[in-house]
């Protein structure tokens, strides 16, 4: 006990001097963030995600799979074949699948039930890797989300199934585990923080969740690929030192429901271009 108190008193004085030094850190950081803002602005001038959108649009209208049908009967929640505004109301509960689904799992569902792909075929390349291993799902997602630009997010969080997933997702958000004790909240639970030079949205607040969720999927320049929200979660957990999040799993949809639901009200702005 004595020892702990000593530690704490000592830690407090150390922290006070660190806070004094923080002023210098902030001054240095300002010019850096200005330049980073300039960098992001210059990137926004041309977003290669448009190349994915074009490919996805072609895929959406073309007959595919063993049944040689297009996505014209695929219901994303607004009726068969309706793409306009569809992403802004996902995830939602689909009675035909008896499940809450996000965009990516719904696309897989349509490929399997409408087009005749097996589940394995439909999910064999969910995250693309260069032109030799490109992902149809990423292209389809890029197209579908582009048709929700400017549409206010309105995930049906009051629907009981979605509500349940939302609450489970919230618990997951705070779940600390792994070798490094990380939870989503470790990096995304506070205002005005950044990792390296990347601003970290505070996802516990509506503004933070809105800003983050409405810009995914995104073209990641570090990868030269369009990445979906399923990928975003998968890669966050990799960096959290967790095992691998299964594509389309309940946990992935619960967390998506939580974050998408918190983004309600904000206009959808993806696909964005990011570092």
């Amino acid at each position: 006990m004595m020892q702990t108190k000593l530690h704490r008193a000592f830690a407090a004085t150390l922290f006070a001097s660190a806070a004094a030094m923080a002023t210098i850190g902030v001054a240095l950081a300002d010019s850096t963030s200005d330049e980073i803002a300039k960098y992001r602005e210059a990137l926004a001038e041309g977003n290669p995600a448009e190349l994915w959108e074009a490919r996805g649009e072609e895929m959406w209208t073309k007959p595919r799979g063993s049944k040689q049908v297009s996505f014209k009967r695929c219901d994303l929640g607004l009726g068969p074949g309706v793409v306009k505004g569809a992403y802004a109301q996902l995830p939602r509960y689909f009675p035909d699948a008896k499940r809450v689904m996000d965009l990516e799992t719904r696309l897989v569902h349509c490929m399997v039930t409408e087009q005749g792909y097996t589940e394995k075929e439909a999910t064999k390349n969910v995250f693309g890797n260069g032109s030799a291993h490109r992902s149809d799902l990423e292209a389809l997602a890029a197209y579908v989300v582009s048709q929700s630009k400017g549409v206010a997010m309105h995930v049906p969080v009051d629907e009981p199934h979605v509500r349940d997933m939302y609450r489970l997702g919230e618990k997951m958000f705070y779940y600390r585990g792994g070798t490094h004790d990380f939870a989503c909240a470790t990096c995304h639970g506070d205002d005005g923080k950044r990792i390296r030079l990347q601003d970290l949205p505070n996802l516990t607040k509506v503004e933070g969740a809105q800003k983050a969720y409405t810009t995914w999927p995104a073209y990641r320049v570090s990868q030269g690929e369009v990445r979906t929200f399923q990928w975003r979660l998968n890669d966050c957990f990799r960096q959290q030192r967790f095992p691998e999040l299964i594509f389309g799993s309940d946990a992935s949809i619960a967390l998506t429901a939580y974050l998408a639901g918190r983004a309600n009200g904000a206009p959808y702005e993806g696909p964005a271009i990011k570092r």
Partner: protein
Amino acid sequence: MADPMKIRANLVGDETEVKVLMSHEMETGQRKDAQGKVIPAWFIQNVKVMHNDKVVLAAQWGPAVSKNPFLSFKFKDGAKGDKVTITWVDNHNDTRTDEATIA
């Protein structure tokens, strides 16, 4: 075959502003795969932009141009409805030509 380019050509005052995105790996030849094998260079070497029958920009690129290249520039004497045609050729002699109408 390579994917189509995304070309925008817009009249701004008396100039036509061209913005183009190309779908290409732009592999440098400096990277290694998971097995430690060098991934061979594969990149666009020549780009040519035509306005009707006139060359308005000709470029030579090395592998240091970013993946899925972006290019923006302006030229004079374009009119709404005119064609802008862009061609690239890569080091595998693969080529792609796309056109856009000035809006």
